């Protein structure tokens, strides 16, 4: 896709989509056990865990980005280990962006899942256990299919929210074309260089996407609840 100014807006768009997709998959995998634990536990640590998971909602992305920069940097706990493992730095790389996005979008995956799991009737699971299903078996054969809405909601929100992130990416990923230059950064760049044409094109694209996704989700939810 050629922009009005002749530079490609396709690369940042694809990079954003790729980042959002990978982040969504990772978040479903790690968010599901977290959400399940939160939905089932009476532990006194539950509010602590809930607060930690929800923090990215209220923190300025720069704060999250700052700490992640330190954590993921070559001298940080995760970053140092990554350098040893791969020889590359995590900061200003796509892998680093994925990790940062996972922290940033975690509440958007965990909360819909937790809500779905909490609304499962306890006795339906107990019935599955008495019918010979182990807890793990009952989770996959009963809890997951009964929570499809939660999974759809978690995936849609994680994807959309990751697509829209800016501050954290800027702090951790910088602005490397093809590696960390996602669409929100590209829009910022275009505006900075007074290239309003490109900014309009990309912004409109995101605007349309956000509306379609959220509209689609609410329509599906309505259908489900009317059934």
């Amino acid at each position, binding site marked *: 896709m050629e922009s009005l100014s002749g530079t490609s807006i396709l690369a940042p768009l694809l990079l954003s989509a790729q980042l959002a997709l990978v982040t969504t998959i990772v978040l479903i995998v790690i968010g599901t056990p977290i959400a399940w634990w939160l939905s089932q536990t009476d532990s006194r640590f539950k509010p602590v865990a809930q607060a930690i998971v929800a923090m990215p909602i209220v923190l300025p992305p720069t704060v999250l980005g700052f700490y992640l920069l330190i954590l993921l940097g070559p001298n940080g706990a995760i970053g140092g280990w990554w350098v040893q493992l791969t020889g590359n730095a995590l900061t200003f790389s796509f892998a680093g962006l994925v990790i940062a996005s996972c922290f940033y979008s975690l509440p958007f995956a965990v909360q819909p899942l937790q809500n779905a799991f909490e609304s499962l*009737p306890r*006795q*339906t699971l*107990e*019935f*599955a*256990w*008495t*019918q*010979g*299903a*182990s*807890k793990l*078996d*009952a989770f996959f*054969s*009963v809890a997951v*299919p*009964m929570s*499809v809405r939660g999974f759809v909601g978690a995936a849609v929100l994680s994807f959309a929210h990751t697509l829209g992130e800016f501050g954290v990416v800027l702090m951790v990923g910088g602005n490397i074309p093809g590696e960390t230059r996602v669409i929100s950064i590209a829009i910022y760049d275009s505006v900075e260089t007074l290239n309003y044409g490109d900014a309009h094109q990309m912004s409109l694209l995101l605007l349309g996407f956000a509306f379609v996704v959220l509209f689609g989700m609410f329509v599906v939810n309505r259908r489900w609840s009317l*059934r």
Partner: protein
Amino acid sequence: MGQDINLFLDASIALKHALRRGDFELDVDVQIPATGITGLFGDSGSGKTTLLRCIAGLETGMSHDPRPVHKRGIGYVFQEPQLFPHLDVRRNIEYGLRRSPSTRVDQGQVVELLGLGGLLDRKPDGLSGGEAQRVAIASVLLRSPRLVLMDEPLASLDQRRKEELLPYLDRLHDELSVPIIYVSHSIDEVSRLCDHLLLIDEGKIVASGELHEVLSRLDLPMLSGSNAGSVIDASPQRYDSVYNLTELGFSGGVLAVPGRYEARERSVRLRIAAQDVSICLSRPNATTILNVLAAEIDDVQPVGPSSALVRLAVGSEYLLALITRRSVARLDLKKGDQVFAQVKSVTVRH
């Protein structure tokens, strides 16, 4: 020791459970037969459901049985049928079957027994409460559990659905050998379905025994008043088509009940509430009461400031009569007296 439930020579099942939760304490140590239906009768809050949950292993941290719930082989029918909404009826009833190491129950027979043939391709949200409960019962039975627990399976149904489901439960009782513990706070349901009876009060078993025997006891406060009554198994003898009455015979005589019961039915269970039985010293002739039986007073016990329960031997069966203590005094009723029992109303198990 792992003795939450043990099968002794297939003849009895030992239930041994203790649990404390706040003010409530459950302490049960009792044996029940390994065949037939055992009724667990008690008021709400008496610990019926808690006991079932202990047996199934659903109460965590309180069990001597190290096995997890899914390896106990104990089926549980909840008050609200718990079907899996994402599976059709067929897959619902096969859910437990697929997870069962061996099954001795014939799927076709259970489907037929519970009348599920036409429902197999439906989704649970399209079923009535009674249909859903039948599906749940079929799912449980198909696993060939060693014991089935039923927690007031009729309680969430309206009267019509109850009447609809009861005959299926009768058939289960008649045709399957799996032992069932049936929880209810309705003495009518218990009297109709069960062979053995456990009475539970404040977490303790206060009586355990064969149904007729427990029902004929006069010393149980739970079974005084409107819950007092006896059960008689009788066989249809003659149908009176003019008045639509069937005469049912038993060792103590004949009882006429409304409706038609075929002689080929092996026996019909009658429940006679104690408040529907009155006593005459001589055979009453001018009475609207149809059923009058010669009886001998077996015991008289006061059950309150003004009431007394009288146990009457009628043939080899017992009838209970709930009368006033003034009448006991006025007629000087005592053990050994030959009297006549007037039976005002009989509940028949169809």
